[in-house]
């Protein structure tokens, strides 16, 4: 049986197809650069919004970003 008769569905390729669309395409509100702080991506919308986003993130995380990274409990 030739390999041409067998069609594979590959999980890894599917994931790449999804990531390519979802991470880079669609409606883009922010600029092209994302700065990651303490491994949390912050979408760069503009400096003022960025600063308030950091505050929002800090509230949600329940901890400020400016100290050393704590291990999650």
């Amino acid at each position: 049986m030739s390999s041409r008769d067998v069609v594979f569905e590959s999980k890894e390729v599917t994931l790449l197809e999804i990531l390519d669309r979802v991470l880079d395409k669609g409606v883009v509100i922010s600029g092209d650069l994302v700065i990651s702080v303490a491994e949390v991506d912050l979408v760069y919308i503009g400096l003022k919004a960025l600063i308030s986003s950091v505050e929002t993130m800090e509230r949600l995380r329940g901890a400020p970003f400016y100290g050393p990274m704590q291990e999650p409990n």
Partner: protein
Amino acid sequence: MSQEVKTDSPGDFLEELEKTRDSLPKRIAANPQNVEKGLAKLVLTLIELIRKLMEKQAMRRIENGSLSEAEVERVGETLMKLENKMVELKQIFGLEDEDLNLNLGPLGKLL
């Protein structure tokens, strides 16, 4: 209706698609260890882009004969020096050619 992703050759596509993922960091991890390397990658990638564009321009003009002898010499010498400098800089920052692969999408035609 869920989507299908089907191919006879998933391994080949995995390999090629991994290469297309931009090595130009869209996300710059701002921590002390790799901020230097991340920025070096960014800067050197952009310089490589410009250098390759200049090379291609020069080739086009050589092809249609629109450069004088003297201009060919000057352009050639400059391109040589640029290339050598880039080799040096890549070595200093421990970056390979693949690290500086800029996936330009529709702009890719420029290169």
